[in-house]
C-alpha cells in the first residue's frame, strides 16, 4: 500500500509531523514503512506553458520550433522533438536554469542553429513512473489540462507530496484504505479525525428499478447497486488523477477512476457496469456452471473453476465476483449509464478463485483479506456522489441493497490482570481506556476489566488477546521492562544424538574434510548417477516443482556431494575433501499417506592428494585404505565396535573397491571408489566416498568406559608370514587366528602384504604381528611357541597356508 502524505493530511492534521516522523511512528505501531519517497524525484522550475505556435525547424525534419507562453513578458522559443506537440496545448516547460531528475540542467542553447529557451517535458522526463501515466500520455510530451500559464507543475501534478511505502501484514486489511490509515494515524498521534460521510442521493425524476437476486448467499452475503446515467466519459480531474498516481494506479477515465479512487479511500472495491450492455437492469449472483468461461477486462478468456462466483445480468456472466469485471460490460468512451456495484464476497472464495486463475487484483487483494461491511453502502454513495459531481451523472435508481445479516460491532471482555500479566507491565485503568479512546473503540469499565466494542473495520480483532496487543503496541514495547524467566529451572543441553552429531562434525573437520550443505531437492537423474543401497524405493515428488532440477527429495547425500566436487574442480581445486551431514528421505509408498523416514546420514568424498604439496616430498594420493583408516578412526572415537566390511558391487562404484559397512550384521553404510566412468563424467580423478547411517551408530556409540588394571607382565610378540590364495580376505585369516589362539592373543596387526615374482601365481604373502600376554604371569617362550605352532597348523589345514621362512 502506498500512502500519500498530502492525501492523509486531509483527514488527520499532520502539523509538526514530517513524512519521516510519520513513517517512524507508523513503524513503531506495527505498520511497517519500507521507504519514504518524494514524489518529485528531482525537478525544479517546471511550469505550465501554453503552446502558441508550432513551426517546422528549418534544419531538421523531426524537430519543431514552438512559441510557448509561460506567463513571462515574451513567449519563449523552444525546440521540441515530440511528434504530438500542437498549438493550443498546455504543457510542462522546464525553464532555463531548471533541473530534471537524473541531474540534467536546462540551458539556453542552439539546436541545429535555432535558439531554444527551455524544454517541453514528457512524463518520463519529469520522473513519473510509466505505469501510472495515462496510456495516451506515455509517448511524447505530457499534455496538461487548461491551467494558468506559469503554474508550478510540481503542485499541479501533486508531486509536492511524499509517499510512504507500507509493508502491511496480512491481518491489517483495514490499512488498505486511506480511511483505515487515517484511523490508525489519528490513534497513534492522538489527533482529531475528519472523515466526511457521503450523502445518499435519490433519483429525481424517472426511476429504474434494479432487480437483485443472490443465488449464492453464503458466498455473497451483501450486494448494493445503483444506476447513474447521463455520464460523459472524460479524463478525471487532475486532483483525482494525482491521488491515483500517488497510490500507484494509472488513471483511465472518470468512471473507472472514481471506482478506484473510492476503493483507495474507503477500502471497498467497486465495479461499474455499462448498463446498456446488460440484458436488463438486473444483477444475479450465482456460482459458475461447469465449463463456463468469462472474458475479463484484460481481454483474456478464462475457464471458471468450479465454485467460482459470477455476477450475471440474468442471462450472461458480466464479472468474476471480487476479482475482475467482464469485457462484455466494460465501461468505454461511449458509456452513458452505469450500474455501480458495491458488495461483500467471501474472502476464502475470492482467494481461491484469484489463486486458481492466477489473477490477483487490487479488488481481490482487499476482498480476500476482508473489507469492512459497514462501508459497502458508504462506498456506493461516495462513488455515486462523485459520478454526479465529476462525470455529469444523474441518479436514476434507488440504492438497491440485499443484506443477509446486519453486521454489528463485537464486544470483547478484557481483564485488566490478564493484560498486565501478559504484557509484563503495570498499567493504570485510565491508560488502558485512553488507548481505546484513541483507537475509537468504545470502552466501558467493568469489574476487573473492560468491555470493549470493536468496530467492524477491525476484523482482525476477535478476542481478548487481540485487544492486549492493541494496548501493547500503542503503549510502546520499549516501555515494558525486560526480565529473565524465573520459576522452575530447566536443565536443557544437548541430547546424546545431538552431542554425537557435533562430535562427528568436529572429527571430520579434524580429518581435513570441509563441511557442505547442499539442497534437499534434486532430480531423479541426479540420484541415478550413483547406485543406492538397499532396494530401489519410490521417490518422493513435489506436486508442483519450480524447476526440473528440483522435483524430488534426495535419497542419498552423494549426488550433490559429487556435484559440489565437480564444481570445485572446475575452479582449480584439486585436493578435495568434503562431507555433509543431513537427512535423506525414505518411503515405501508410491503416494505418501504418512510422513517419510528422515534418515540422518553422513557422507564424505575425497579426491586428489591428502595434503597440499610440500618442499619435503611428494604428498600422498588418496586411496581406499586411507579413507578406511579415517572411518576406523571415527568408529574408534565414537566407541562403536562390531563394524565389519564386506566387498560388494554397486552401480556407479568400482567393482573391486567397494565395501558395505555392517554394524553387527545390519547394513549401515558404504565405502568405495567411484567407478572411473562416473568420476570421469564429473571431471574427477580417482575419488573415494563413504556414507553412513548415523542413528544405528549413535545407538552403539559411547559405551561405558570401565577402567581395567594395567598389565603387570610383559608382552611377547611373534611375526607370522604365510602364503595363501590371493583372494582369501585378511579379515577371515585374522578371525581364524583369534579363535585358534584364545585369550592370550591380545592383538593381530597385518604389517606386510605382497605378491609378485617371489610368490606363486594366484597367491599372496601376508605377514602378521601377534602380541601375546598373560594377565597373571610372564609367558614362557615354550608356551608362546606352542600357541604359535598351533595357529600355523590351523592355517595350513584351513587355507593350505605355507609358512614363509
Amino acid at each position, binding site marked *: 500500500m502506498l500512502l500519500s502524505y498530502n492525501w492523509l493530511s486531509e483527514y488527520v492534521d499532520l502539523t509538526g509531523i514530517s513524512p519521516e516522523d510519520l513513517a517512524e511512528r507508523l513503524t513503531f505501531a*506495527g505498520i511497517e514503512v519500507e521507504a519514504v519517497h518524494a514524489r518529485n524525484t528531482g525537478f525544479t522550475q517546471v511550469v505550465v506553458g501554453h503552446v502558441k505556435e508550432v513551426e517546422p525547424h528549418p534544419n531538421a525534419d523531426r524537430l519543431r520550433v514552438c512559441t510557448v507562453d509561460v506567463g513571462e513578458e515574451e513567449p519563449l522559443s523552444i525546440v521540441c522533438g515530440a511528434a504530438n506537440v500542437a498549438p493550443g496545448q498546455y504543457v510542462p516547460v522546464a525553464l532555463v536554469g531548471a533541473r530534471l531528475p537524473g541531474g540534467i540542467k536546462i540551458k539556453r542553447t542552439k539546436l541545429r542553429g535555432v535558439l531554444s529557451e527551455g524544454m517541453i517535458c514528457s512524463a518520463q522526463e519529469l520522473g513519473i513512473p510509466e505505469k501510472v501515466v495515462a496510456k495516451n500520455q506515455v509517448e511524447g510530451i505530457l499534455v496538461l489540462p487548461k491551467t494558468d500559464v506559469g503554474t508550478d507543475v510540481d503542485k499541479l501534478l501533486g508531486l509536492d507530496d511524499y509517499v510512504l511505502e507500507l509493508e502491511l501484514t496480512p491481518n491489517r486489511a483495514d490499512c488498505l484504505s486511506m480511511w483505515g490509515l487515517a484511523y490508525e494515524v489519528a490513534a497513534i498521534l492522538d489527533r482529531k479525525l475528519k472523515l466526511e460521510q457521503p450523502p445518499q442521493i435519490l433519483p429525481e425524476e424517472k426511476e429504474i428499478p434494479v432487480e437483485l437476486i443472490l443465488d449464492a448467499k453464503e458466498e455473497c452475503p451483501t450486494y448494493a447497486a445503483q444506476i447513474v446515467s447521463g455520464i460523459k466519459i472524460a479524463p478525471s480531474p487532475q486532483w483525482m488523477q494525482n491521488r491515483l498516481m500517488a497510490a500507484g494506479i494509472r488513471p483511465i477515465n472518470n468512471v473507472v477512476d472514481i471506482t478506484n479512487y473510492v476503493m483507495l479511500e474507503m477500502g471497498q472495491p467497486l465495479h461499474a457496469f455499462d448498463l446498456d450492455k446488460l440484458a436488463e437492469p438486473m444483477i444475479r449472483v450465482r456460482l459458475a456452471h461447469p465449463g463456463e468461461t468469462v472474458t475479463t477486462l484484460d481481454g483474456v478468456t478464462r475457464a471458471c473453476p468450479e465454485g467460482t462466483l459470477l455476477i450475471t445480468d440474468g442471462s450472461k456472466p458480466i464479472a468474476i465476483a471480487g476479482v475482475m469485471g467482464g469485457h462484455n460490460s466494460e465501461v468505454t468512451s461511449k458509456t452513458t449509464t452505469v450500474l455501480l456495484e458495491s458488495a461483500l464476497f467471501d474472502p476464502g472464495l475470492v482467494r481461491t478463485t484469484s489463486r486458481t486463475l492466477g489473477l490477483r487484483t487490487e479488488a481481490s487483494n482487499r476482498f480476500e483479506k476482508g473489507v469492512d461491511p459497514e462501508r459497502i453502502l458508504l462506498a456506493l454513495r461516495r462513488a455515486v456522489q462523485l459520478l454526479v459531481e465529476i462525470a455529469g451523472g444523474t441518479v436514476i435508481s434507488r440504492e438497491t441493497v440485499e443484506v443477509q445479516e446486519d453486521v454489528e460491532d463485537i464486544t470483547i471482555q478484557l481483564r485488566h490482570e490478564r493484560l498486565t500479566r501478559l504484557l*509484563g507491565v503495570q498499567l493504570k485503568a485510565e491508560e488502558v481506556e485512553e488507548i481505546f479512546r484513541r483507537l475509537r473503540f468504545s470502552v466501558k469499565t467493568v469489574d476487573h476489566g473492560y468491555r470493549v466494542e470493536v468496530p467492524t473495520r477491525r476484523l482482525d480483532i476477535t478476542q481478548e488477546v487481540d485487544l492486549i496487543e492493541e494496548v501493547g503496541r500503542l503503549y510502546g514495547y520499549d516501555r515494558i521492562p525486560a526480565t529473565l524467566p524465573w520459576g522452575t529451572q530447566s536443565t536443557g543441553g544437548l541430547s546424546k544424538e545431538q552431542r554425537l552429531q557435533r562430535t562427528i562434525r568436529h572429527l571430520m573437520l579434524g580429518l581435513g574434510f570441509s563441511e557442505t550443505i547442499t539442497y534437499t531437492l534434486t532430480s531423479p537423474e541426479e540420484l541415478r548417477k550413483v547406485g543406492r543401497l538397499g532396494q530401489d524405493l519410490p521417490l518422493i515428488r513435489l506436486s508442483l516443482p519450480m524447476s526440473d532440477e528440483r522435483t524430488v527429495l534426495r535419497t542419498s547425500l552423494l549426488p550433490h556431494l559429487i556435484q559440489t566436487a565437480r564444481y570445485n574442480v572446475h575452479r582449480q581445486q584439486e585436493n578435495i575433501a568434503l562431507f555433509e551431514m543431513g537427512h535423506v528421505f525414505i518411503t515405501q509408498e508410491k503416494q505418501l499417506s504418512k510422513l517419510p523416514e528422515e534418515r540422518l546420514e553422513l557422507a564424505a568424498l575425497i579426491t586428489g592428494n591428502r595434503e597440499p604439496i610440500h618442499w619435503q616430498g611428494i604428498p600422498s594420493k588418496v586411496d581406499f585404505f586411507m579413507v578406511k583408516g579415517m572411518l576406523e578412526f571415527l568408529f574408534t572415537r565414537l566407541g562403536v565396535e562390531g563394524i565389519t566390511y564386506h566387498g560388494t558391487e554397486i552401480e556407479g562404484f568400482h567393482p573391486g573397491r567397494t565395501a558395505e559397512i555392517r554394524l553387527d550384521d545390519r547394513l549401515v553404510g558404504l565405502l568405495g571408489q567411484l567407478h572411473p566412468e562416473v568420476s570421469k563424467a564429473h571431471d574427477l580423478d580417482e575419488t573415494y566416498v563413504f556414507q553412513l547411517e548415523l542413528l544405528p551408530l549413535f545407538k552403539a556409540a559411547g559405551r561405558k568406559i570401565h577402567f581395567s588394571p594395567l598389565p603387570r607382565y610383559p608382552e611377547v610378540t611373534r611375526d607370522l608370514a604365510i602364503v595363501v590364495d590371493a583372494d582369501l580376505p585378511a579379515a577371515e585369516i585374522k578371525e581364524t587366528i583369534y579363535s585358534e589362539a584364545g585369550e592370550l592373543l591380545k592383538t593381530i596387526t597385518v604389517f606386510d602384504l605382497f605378491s609378485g615374482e617371489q610368490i606363486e601365481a594366484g597367491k599372496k604373502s601376508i605377514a602378521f604381528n601377534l602380541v601375546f600376554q598373560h594377565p597373571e604371569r610372564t609367558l614362557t617362550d615354550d608356551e608362546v611357541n606352542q600357541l604359535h605352532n598351533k595357529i600355523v597348523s590351523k592355517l595350513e589345514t584351513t587355507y593350505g597356508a605355507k609358512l614363509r621362512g
Partner: protein
Amino acid sequence: MKQKLQELKEEASQRIAEVNNLRDLQELRVKYLGKKGEIKTLLRGMGKLPPAERPVIGSLANEIQKALEEQIDKKETMIEKELLEQRLIREKLDVTLPGRPLPIGAIHPLRKVIEEIEDIFIGMGFAIAEGPEVEWDKYNFEALNIPKNHPARDMQDSFYITSEILLRTHTSPVQVRTLLEREGQVPVKIICPGKVYRRDDDDATHSHQFMQIEGLVVDRGISVGELKGTLDTFVKRMFGQEVQSRLRPSFFPFTEPSVEMDISCVVCAGKGCRVCKQTGWIEILGAGMVHPRVLQYAGYDAERYTGFAFGMGPDRIAMLKYGIDDIRHFYTNDLRFLRQFQSV
C-alpha cells in the same frame, strides 16, 4: 724402571694431547692402558726388581695409569663436545621454511552460527528440539492458527507433496510437536534449528532452502518482559554487549502480540550504513507471545500458562556477521568460500 715409566708417561701424554679423533684416542687407550698395553707390559718386568722398590714402582705405575686415564677421559669429552658442536652447526635449519601442512577442514558458516546460537540458549537452560522437514499441513499451518485459505499463507509459499504433506516452511511446527509431546508439562524451553523450504526463486537474498531457529518458552507467568529479557540477553551474547535491541509490533498468526526485534547495526554501530540502509538498525528476529489457540491446540490451558516464541534465520545472521553478500554461497559450497571459515 722408574725412568722408563716416566718416559712412557711423557710419550703417552704427548700423543694423547696430539690426538684429535675418538678412534685414535681409543687406540691410544688400548696401546698404553690396555691389558696388553705398554704399561702392563713394562710392569711384567717388576719381578726382577728388588722387593723394596716394588711397592714404589707399583704405586707410581698406578698413579701414571690414573693420570693417563683421566687425560684420555678429558680428551674424549673434549672431542665429543667438539663433534657435537660441529654436528649442531651442520644440523642448522632454515626455520623459515614452511611446516608440513596437515589437511584442514572448514566448518560450514551456517553450522558455525547455529552451534553458537545453540550454545547461548543452552547456557540459559534451553534444550534442542528437532522435527521432520517433511511435515503435516496441520502442524505447519493449522495448529499454528493458519487455517487453510488464510491470507497469512501467502507469507510462506510452500512446496506440497500431497494436499496434506509439505516441506515445512518454518521450524514452528516443532513448537507444536514439542507441546504435544510434553502433554501439558512446564517449563518448556526449547530451540529448534533446522532446514526450511519456501517457493522462492533463488537470488542473492532468497533461497528456496534455508535455515531457521525457532524458540519456545512456556511456563506460568511468562510475559512480554521475559521475551524482551531473554532475547536481549541473546543478542548481546551473540553480537556483543554494546549492541542495543528494540521491539517493533508485527504480525505472526501463531503469536499475539507479535513483534520484530531490531538490533543496532553491527557494521556501523548504529551510525547508519549501507547494511542497515542508513537506519542504524537491523531486523534480526520475529517473536511474540504464544497465541492462546496454539496452546489450546496442543492441550495447554492458556489461562494458566503463557509463553513466548521466536524465530530467526541463521543464513541472515551469518551474512551479517561475516559480511556475506549472497545467500547462494551457503549452498554452492565453493571451497574458496568454505575455507574462509576454518578458524574457530
